[in-house]
C-alpha cells in the first residue's frame, strides 16, 4: 500500500512539474520600460562577431548544440522576422550558438536554450523569452513595437 502511494505520488509530482513547466516556458517577460532615449542607449546590447541587428527590432536567439527545439525556434523566428521585415533590415533574426562562447552565456545570465531577446531599434533589451517562444505572442509583441499607435 505504501509502495503504491509512493508510485502514484511520484507520477503526480512529475505531472505537476510538467504542467508548471509547460505553462511557464516561452513566456514573454518584458524588461522594465525606461522610455527615455538615453536609458535605451545605455542598455544597448552588442555582441562581437554576429550579424548586424535590425534597425527597428531584433529577435536575438541564443542556442546550444544540445538543444532539440533550437532549430524549430530558429525556423519560426526567422520566418517571423521575414514576415515583418521591409526588405531593408528593419526586423532581423539573429541566432547565436553559445556552445563555444561561455562568456556570452555568462554576460546575459542565460539559464536555458533557446533564450530569445527582443531588442528595439537601438539594440536595447525590451523583452526576454526563456524556452520555445509562443510564436503568436511574439507576433503580437512585434505588432506592438512596430505600430505603437494601434495599441
Amino acid at each position, binding site marked *: 500500500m505504501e509502495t503504491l502511494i509512493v508510485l502514484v505520488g511520484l507520477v503526480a509530482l512529475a505531472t505537476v512539474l510538467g504542467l508548471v*513547466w509547460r505553462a511557464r516556458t516561452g513566456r514573454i517577460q518584458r524588461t522594465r520600460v525606461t522610455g527615455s532615449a538615453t536609458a535605451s542607449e545605455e542598455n544597448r546590447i552588442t555582441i562581437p562577431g554576429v550579424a548586424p541587428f535590425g534597425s527597428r527590432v531584433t529577435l536575438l536567439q541564443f542556442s546550444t*548544440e544540445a538543444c*532539440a527545439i533550437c532549430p524549430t525556434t530558429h525556423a519560426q523566428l526567422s520566418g517571423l522576422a521575414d514576415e515583418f521585415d521591409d526588405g531593408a533590415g528593419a526586423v532581423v533574426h539573429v541566432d547565436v550558438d553559445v*556552445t*563555444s562562447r561561455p562568456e556570452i*552565456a555568462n554576460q546575459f545570465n542565460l539559464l536555458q536554450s533557446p533564450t530569445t531577446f527582443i531588442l528595439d531599434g537601438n539594440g536595447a533589451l525590451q523583452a526576454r523569452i526563456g524556452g520555445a517562444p509562443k510564436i503568436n505572442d511574439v507576433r503580437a509583441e512585434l505588432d506592438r513595437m512596430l505600430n505603437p499607435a494601434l495599441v
Partner: protein
Amino acid sequence: MTTNPTTPPAANQLSASKAALVAKPGQAGIDPRGPRFGASITAALLLTVVGLGVDAAAALPATIAERASQPAFILFSVIAALFAWGALAGIQRHPYGLFFKAAIRPRLSAPSHFEDPRPPTFAQAIGLLISVLGIVLHLAAVPYALVIFAGLAFIAAFLNSVFDYCLGCQIYVLLVRAGLVGRSRTAS
C-alpha cells in the same frame, strides 16, 4: 557520426518553418518520436525500480553482495547500462531507437521533420550520471539513495516522454557556463 539513411519527406509539401528542419544530405537526422518512445519505456522501468526498492530503502542489507543482489538494484543497473549505450553509441543505436526504427516507425506516417540526435544523446549521458550516482551510493549502503536517484531519473524521462521536455535545452547552457562542456568547438 553516420548519416541516417532514411529519406526526408518532400520539402515542397511542408510549411517553410518545417522545411528548414528537414535533414539535409550529409547531416544526421532522427525521427523526433523515437527518443520520446524510448523515454516512455525508460520511465516505466524506472518507476518499477522505485516500486521494487521503496520498501527496503530505509533498512538496507548488511553486506554489499546482498545489496547488489536486490531486484531493484539489478534493474537499475540494467537501465544504467542502457543509458551508457545511448550516451556512447548515440541515441539512434540505442536498443529502443533500433526497435523503434525497425518495428514502430514503419507503422507510423512520416515525421513532419527530423531532429538532431545530439540533444537526446546528451540526455542519455545525464541519465547515466544520475543512475551511476544512485548505484554507487546504494552499494555504499546509503539509505534511500537508490529510490531517490531512480525517482529523479523517472521524472526526467517522464517529462521527456509526456511533455516533450528537453533536458539538454535546460541544462546544457549551465554546463557551458560552468566550463564543463563546449569549450573546444567541434566542426559541425
